[in-house]
């Protein structure tokens, strides 16, 4: 590949919030995100991972998924999904979910949700279910509007409130500091390190 400007990198994610996180990380690491695939949940990605891997033989690809409770830690899940990753495949797993990365910037998330910093867990990657933790924290917000947007109404049958997605997008784009969050979230830290390598490994 010839050196010069870095071409946009294709990626696949579970949902819109993950896409926003990846685009924020791209700014942080000096890469450019191109076409975004997926956004239909995790099982959608799992069924198509071989296709993404095939494309990654030819140009860089990022696939970002949540570990959830699918395995104890990231390596066995990586082995299950992608036993032989292609040369340009950057397969990243958030422990246990991208929500933990967002909680890891303790000062900003506390400020954004209007809760005391002491209510934010200091080791978010140890949480079993960071997303529901995020909702529980928002439920204790001093601001009614945060509770209305983030927390589902009783009997609504869903896990998040009506404004959850747009509020998190706002937080990620305008407040969240990946480099600070990386200090509390090892899987984010290694993801940032790997993304920084893309231009060198790809020979741009």
């Amino acid at each position, binding site marked *: 590949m010839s050196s010069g400007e870095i071409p946009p990198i294709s990626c696949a994610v579970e*949902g*819109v919030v993950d896409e926003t996180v990846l685009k924020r990380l791209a700014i942080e690491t000096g890469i450019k995100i191109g076409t975004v695939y997926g*956004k*239909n*949940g*995790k099982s959608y990605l799992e069924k198509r991972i071989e296709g993404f891997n095939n494309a990654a033989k030819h140009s860089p690809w990022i696939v970002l998924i949540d570990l959830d409770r699918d395995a104890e830690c990231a390596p066995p899940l990586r082995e299950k999904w992608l036993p032989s990753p292609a040369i340009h495949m950057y397969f990243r797993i958030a422990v246990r979910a991208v929500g933990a990365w967002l909680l890891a910037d303790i000062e900003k998330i506390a400020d954004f949700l209007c809760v005391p910093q002491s209510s934010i867990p200091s080791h978010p990657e140890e949480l079993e279910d960071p997303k529901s933790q995020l909702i529980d924290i928002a439920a204790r917000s001093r*601001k*009614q*509007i945060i509770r*209305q*947007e983030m927390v*589902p*109404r009783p*009997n*609504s*049958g*869903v*896990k*998040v*409130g*009506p*404004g*959850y*997605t*747009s509020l998190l997008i706002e937080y990620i784009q305008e407040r969240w500091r990946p480099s600070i969050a990386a200090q509390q979230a090892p899987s984010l830290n290694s993801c940032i390190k790997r993304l920084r390598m893309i231009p060198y490994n790809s020979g741009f």
Partner: protein
Amino acid sequence: MRESTASAFRFTHLYLENWRNFTKVDVDLQKRAFLIGPNASGKSNLLDAFRFLRDIVSIGGGFQAAVGRRGGVKPLRCLAARRNSDIVIGARIGNNECPSAWEYEIRFSQDKQSLPAIVKECVRKNGRDLLLRPNREDKADPQRLTQTYLEQINVNKAFRDIAEFFNSVRYLHIVPQLVRDPGRSVGRQDDPYGGDFLEQIAKTNNKTQKTWLKKVEKALKIAVPQFEQIEFERDPVRGTPHLKVKYTHWRPHGAWQKEDQFSDGTLRLLGLLWAILEKSGPLLLEEPELSLHTKIVRHLPQMFWRMQMRSGRQIILSTHSSELLSEEGIALDEVLLLIPHPEGTKVRLARDIQEILHLVQGGIPLGEAVIPHTAPENHFQMSLFEG
């Protein structure tokens, strides 16, 4: 961040009997309601119940006109209804704190001359009857039952709030061809199909018009590639209003196009964004996903929610799009499934269908869980159609 407007009034409950496709509907409504169902299951007809209430109180409207515009009592009555049974539309209006602040019910049929006649009209405020017809005067003069009290300014003072609320209902189903060629709907006002869309923009006061066009421009820049700028102008000779859009282009100053050259998707999105900016009563939308890219459609529910946080405005829409329903913040009591049945279409909340509840709780996107419930049973035979 925006202020909460949770207290704004909305339709909190709808009750129908023998209205078009439905023998009976009895359903709660949230701030957003998503109507899904197969073709001809009655999505538009359910929306039409709200439009009917608006027609009763609108200028140039009234009960007789509202029924007349729909072809009379007979075509309105559900085919599955028993002979000569009454048609009923009932609505509760309120907010989360007080869901039944107001109740309105109208029950009607036709008289011996096949003219629409009111059988019952009832208004309740906080559970207390303010009006119950037929009253003594109606019995003395049955002719009075050709008009509702709601539409008459001289008798509706005690419950004019409801009349004003019904009058604030807005229905939108932009037909791009009508926007491009407004000559087809000359003289129409508040045309839901967009015939006077440009006139409506023209009528907005200058400052608001500028601010709103800037907001629309910002959204269109995201959705429409190469889109750069939007401006409103009047034809200097004929005075007709026009929108023009600038696209980035190989020419250094870009290229301007007038609305007659806009794509269907651009026009529909324009209409949708404009309607959202208006701070009015409940907004009824037919398939807002039409002509739009699926990735844009996916963000509509969040867009609507943000609008509601600002204006408190209720939104009731019909859709066939599983993309639109894939937004994870859509609650299961916001989704109404219309399921056709020989005894009339049934309306059920997604929350009350156990299977959907279990699927969504297991992580399946809502769209994927509900759309199969609305597919026609033998849809696969469509591919055998030969003509």
